[in-house]
């Protein structure tokens, strides 16, 4: 079981993801904005973060830089699951993985719940 922070602006979608993650035995917390996500990370100390890049006000990349500026969150794996097409992220893939600790990039419209769960499982605490 992992503690998962879901950063997702759409509350309907967030409820669905949280239910699927809970059914797999994970504890979930949800934030709609980058600021709320920082607060939630501080409060719940997540093992994994699932992040949408397109957020209102501060975007997901700003959130990542903020997150990585704190010593305790340097190694927390981040899975990007976004409406931003993978091709649009190709140019910054190196920065995302090498500098910002992104372990997987998923294109939200084509990512099933099963795929999300297996990706989380792959990077969950204690995964082989």
């Amino acid at each position: 079981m992992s503690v998962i922070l879901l950063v997702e602006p759409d509350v309907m979608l967030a409820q669905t993801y949280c239910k699927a993650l809970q059914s797999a035995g994970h504890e979930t917390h949800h934030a709609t904005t980058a600021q709320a996500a920082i607060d939630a990370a501080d409060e719940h100390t997540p093992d994994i973060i699932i992040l949408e890049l397109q957020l209102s006000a501060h975007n997901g990349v700003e959130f990542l830089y903020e997150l990585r500026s704190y010593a305790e969150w340097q190694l927390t794996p981040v899975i990007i699951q976004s409406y931003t097409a993978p091709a649009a992220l190709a140019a910054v893939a190196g920065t995302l993985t090498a500098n910002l600790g992104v372990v997987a990039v998923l294109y939200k419209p084509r990512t099933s719940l099963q795929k999300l769960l297996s990706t989380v499982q792959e990077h969950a605490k204690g995964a082989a």
Partner: protein
Amino acid sequence: MIEGLQVQRDASPETMRLLCSVAEQLKVPLTVIARQAELMSMDRRVGVVSYQGDVGKVMASISTQTDMALRLVDSYLLGLQLLDKQGALALEPVSVAATLTDTAHELHGLARQYGVALEVQVAGKYAPVMANARGLHAALLSLGYGLIEARAASAANDAVRRLSLAVHRTPYGIVAGLYGEFGALAPADWRRALQWYGRAPQAIPSLAAGSSAGLFIADALFSAMATAIRVGRFNKQTGLAATFQPSRQLQLV
């Protein structure tokens, strides 16, 4: 195939931008529907955790999302027809207060699912305004769709999310629009959004997470009624609204 090519060739840059924005926006309800349906099928198949009590709620949510997606497409098509006809709509005396109330009723289901409390604020009596009944209804519906999503995405988790559909009188005319706690929204944001929509994934990042197609469809419809969306304030709230001129025609009756 030939017809498709014809449409593509004839489409104006404005139409193509609106189409791109709508396509981006449609990803949201379609993804919600696909994942909710998958969750329900997983539940039956795996049976790890039972959500059978939620079936009715999820089906209602799927229905509302589908309905709003279809309305967005309808509004887009109406906007497209208007653009093809030199961007003008026949103006007639329309009760903006009644249209606003009807719109609130239609948005109620979606707002409830997103945890947004809708309020109608129509203080006083208003003469009919010069608009187009179908166009005004579609524009307010599209605007509401965009702002409900924006309101839900921008609020802190524990905040009460309110959105007001309001009409009020100013020296320049009768203003109808939707207002909420969009403190960061400035007139410059909207002007920039009009340049960015259909070209950037987020046209107005200070307000919304997605493409906000509903807002630009609404703007196209308002423009066809000789008005435009502006950032405005009402009752200490910020929002998007359009100004209409009272109808002198009915006052003669």
